[in-house]
Every structure is written in C-alpha cells, then in structure tokens.
C-alpha cells in the first residue's frame, strides 16, 4: 500500500450515469488483487473533504503503462465531481487496500453480480481465466444498458438477468443463482460463491449460501475516512455469535468478507 499520484487516462460514460475511469499509476503502486480497492482523492481542490473508496474493475500492465480501472455510478456529490474529471487530470490515491477474493482450488467459482457491483467480479473473472479455471458468471441489472462488460467475460459460463426483461432472464440474479445451484447439483465441496452488488442482494445471496453451507464471499461498500484501519469509521456488524460484538473495519478486514457472518440487517 502506498500513496501515489495518478492521472486520468480515460473517463468514459458507458451508459446513463455509469462511468469507466482509467487512471495511470506509477511503479510504486503494487499489483492489486481482485476485490481490493483504492482510496481516491476525487478532486485536487480539497473539496469534497474525504477520499472515496472504489473497488477495482481491473488492472492494466502492458506497454509500459500501469493503470487501474474503476467502474462507478454517479450517486452523489463525489461521484459527480469524479465523472467530470477530464483526461490528463492529476489526482492521487492510496492503494491497493483491503482483502480481496480468495477462491479455493477445487471448487467451481460462481460469481453473482448486481448492477455496478459487477466491477470487482469482472476483475476476478479475468484472473480465473488466466489460470484457465472454469467459472460461472451470473449478472443481473435493471436493464440491458447496465450489463456492463458482458462481452469481456470469457472462459466462463454466463447467465444474464434484467429487471425489465430487456435481455436474458426477467427477474433477479438471485433466481439465476438458485437455478444454477439446483441444476448444477452444487454442494459446499464443489462450489463457492463470490458476490458484489446492492447490500439487499448480498443479504439474499448470503442467506441462500448459509442455508446450503456453501462458502460465500461478498464485497462490501460503505463510506470510509482513513481506509487504512486507523479511524474505525467503517464498522461491519456481525451476526450474534460471530465476532463477540466486535466490529471488523471494512477497510482492512474487508471489503471482501465471509458473507454468512455479516449481519446484513444492521449494515447500512
């Protein structure tokens, strides 16, 4: 982990309000793992005050260029400012930070993505492909236009869902997961789940996994101040019986965590 300068190489709006940001980083920035994040200063002006944590969509390292990719949606003041940063804008970031995904060797990874939560899972799918590992990628979004990155998913079996039925299954990605586990006859010994998306979806996926005893890692999202474990501003509530009332910090004990121990009802 380091504080490094970065420069906007590209900042492209892919669909309404959804942007892909590519930031070049120097050698001092360690190669990140899928699920890790960066704490980005979104404006050199000092306003907004705090950095924003973003999971990485990918890492580019070719032709002498090192760059991180962030897929983000405009949801508030910070992301609106970030969306307006032009090519060549200098910013800085702290990273790579946090705990990433940790696939086990002999299990089929089932990736469950909701909306912009697809970002770290696309990163994960590329590393799985590099290792020539088969995987299943289940991706749900509101409509066709928000199914970002589908064409890039290679080497895995892909199933899509949209709320409006504009492509793939009409309904929730959770239904795709239920069908996949039933039809694939997956067991805790043969498969595991990696998920990212709205916390409501993650809650449902976690409940589904816990009942079946299937290992499930979720990438969480939330506001952070320091992002290095010092300020204790990003507590993750755990289920009664897990963690003895202790709050792990999302920034250093996450953002990827065992989804079955998180008390989703108390996580904002």
């Amino acid at each position, binding site marked *: 982990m380091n504080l490094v300068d970065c420069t906007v190489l590209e900042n492209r709006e892919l669909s309404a309000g959804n942007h892909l940001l590519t930031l070049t980083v120097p050698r001092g920035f360690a190669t990140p793992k899928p699920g890790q994040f960066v704490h980005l200063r979104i404006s050199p002006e000092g306003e907004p*005050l705090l950095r924003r944590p973003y999971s990485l969509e990918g890492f580019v390292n070719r032709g002498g260029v090192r760059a991180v990719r962030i897929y983000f949606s405009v949801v508030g003041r910070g992301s609106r400012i970030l969306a307006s940063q032009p090519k060549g804008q200098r910013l800085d970031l702290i990273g790579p930070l946090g705990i990433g995904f940790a696939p086990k060797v002999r299990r089929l990874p089932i990736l469950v993505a909701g909306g912009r939560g697809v970002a770290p899972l696309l990163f994960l799918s590329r590393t799985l492909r590099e290792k020539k590992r088969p995987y299943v990628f289940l991706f749900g979004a509101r409509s066709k236009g928000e199914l970002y990155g589908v064409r890039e998913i290679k080497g895995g079996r892909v199933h899509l869902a949209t709320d409006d039925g504009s492509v793939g299954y009409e309904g929730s990605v959770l239904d795709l997961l239920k069908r996949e586990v039933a039809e694939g006859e997956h067991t805790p010994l043969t498969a595991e789940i990696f998920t990212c998306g709205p916390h409501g979806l993650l809650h449902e996926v976690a409940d589904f996994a816990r009942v079946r005893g299937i290992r499930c890692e979720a990438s969480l999202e939330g506001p952070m101040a320091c992002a290095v474990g010092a300020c204790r501003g990003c507590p993750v509530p755990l289920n009664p019986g897990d963690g003895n009332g202790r709050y792990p910090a999302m920034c250093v004990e996450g953002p990827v965590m065992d989804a079955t121990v998180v008390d989703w009802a108390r996580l904002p």
Partner: protein
Amino acid sequence: MTPALGVRIGSLKLRNPILVASGIIGYGQDYERLVDLSAIGGIVTKTVTRRARAGNPPPRVVEVASGMLNSIGIENPGLEGFLEVKVPILRDLTCAVIVSVEGEDTKEFCELVEGVSGSGVADAIEVNISCPNVGPHGLKYSTDAGMAREVMSAIRPLTELPLIAKLTPNVTRIGEIAEACADCGADAVSLVNTFIGMAIDSRTRRPILGTVLGGLSGPAIKPLALAKTWEVAQAVDVPVIGMGGIARPQDAIEFLLAGSTAVQVGTALFADPGLAEACVDGLVEYLKRMGASSVDAVIGALEVPEGRGAIRAGIAERRTGQRGGR
C-alpha cells in the same frame, strides 16, 4: 538559517509544534507507510479507555459540507490491551507519543493515568474529558468547571508526566473550564474536540449516524475552533494546543498566532496524509519569510487593532461578573 521550531508543553520538549490529533492515526502503525513521523512533533494516540470498547453501531462517519461527522465511540482495546499490544508499537515510533485516555468516572481516569504512566511509553497524557460519542459521561468533566477540577485534582498526584486536558467546545464559556483544569495541575490544555452535530436523510426521514448525534470536525469548524483557542489563550497561562479544521499549513499558523504553543492536525489528514509534514515545512517557510529565528515569534503574535477587543472584553467581563456574584 533554519528557524528553531522546538516548543515545550510542561516538561515535554517537542522538536516542532505539529502534532497529529487523537483518533486520526490510531497508535501510529496503520499510517506508517503514509506519514513520516520523524518529521513531525508527535502523535496523540487513539483514546484508551479502562475496558475495551467495541465502538458504536454503523454508520459512524458521514461527510457534510466541508466537514465530517463521526460517532466512532472510542473503539479501542482497553487499558490491558493497550499495554499488551499497543505499547510495543509505540515504543518504536520516532516522535513524541502523547497517550489519550478517557474514563467513565474519576476512578477510571486514575487507573488509566497510573497504567499509562507506568508503561513508560508516554511522553505526556492527553486527558480526554470531551468525547461526545461515548454516552452521558463523555462530556461531564468538560462542561462543568467543578467536575473538571475533580478529575484533574485526582489524577495530578499520580504521574510526573505532563497532563494535557482536552476540552470540548460545546460550552458557553470555555475559558472557565480551561482555568479550572490549569488550576488543578494541567500542564496544558488542548482544544477543540468536535462540535456536536447531526445529519438527516430527508428521503428516509432518519438520522444518518447510528447514534443520531455525532461530532463535527474538518474545515467547517476552523473559525469556531480559532475563536475558542483565542479565548482560552487569553484565559490561562499554561500552553494551549489548538486544533479544529486544519487543512493547510497556513491554518496551523493561524492557530499559533491565536495563542497555541502547538497544534494538532486531524480530519484533513485522511484526505492528505502528508499534511502534518507539509505544516512543518510551511511553518519553516513562514518563519523565514518574516525573518524570525524561532517559532516563539509566532505563538500568540496575533495583532489585534486598538479598540477591536470589544468582544474579547465582553467575554472577560461576563466571566468576572459571574465570579463576583458567587
């Protein structure tokens, strides 16, 4: 020639007056790759309480206009955990270590001061009598001069270390609390802790913080903090350590001008981990520009034009008047 930056807080000599505030960089370890501690005066640790605290339910932080509200609730390992796990880390730090402590009552404050003092790792103790996020006891010793006297008098005989009383700004006359602390053996006072604040989500009609109320910090509070610092600097003879919204080197200089002997950098360091070092560099440049040989030339050097002390006089008069009435 480089100006002399050293300052004294009681018997503690700091190589320069730039400190990092409590609750910002934990016990130094989390930020070791981001902050060069050998360049700054010192750090104030995350507050240690008698027993371990899990902290408050989420959300604990929310950004507001030019500031941050927090309701962390002093998540810390407690005195025993501190002695076992944190002391070995602090021993290796390359700057002064000021350990912050907070007790639910006077007895706990005494046990904490004795424990921290005995650890040998503290260069001073900051007595956190001003945390707004730990329940009713958090502010009781810093909103009532009598209570402040009680706790300071009780802990003073227990240690040789400099004691710094950290004050809340959530009072009408902060000078009185500062005086009470100084009268009862505080070697210095530090201020301000956070202002009580609140954020509401109109869409859900709910408070944003898990504890409803929290503490406001960041650039939003700097003018308020400067005013409190100046007021306290008029009221006491012990060194004042000013803080509240320092985000640039000139902010630190403003606190020195207002009467601070040292300053603490807080919330803005989250965005700019190099801020404390930048404040040291900025102070050196400032002193060079004004041709000063020492930081003493800046401390309390605010020039108030003749006849403009009306508000200051007003504070003093009210205070005197109240005293006379007792």
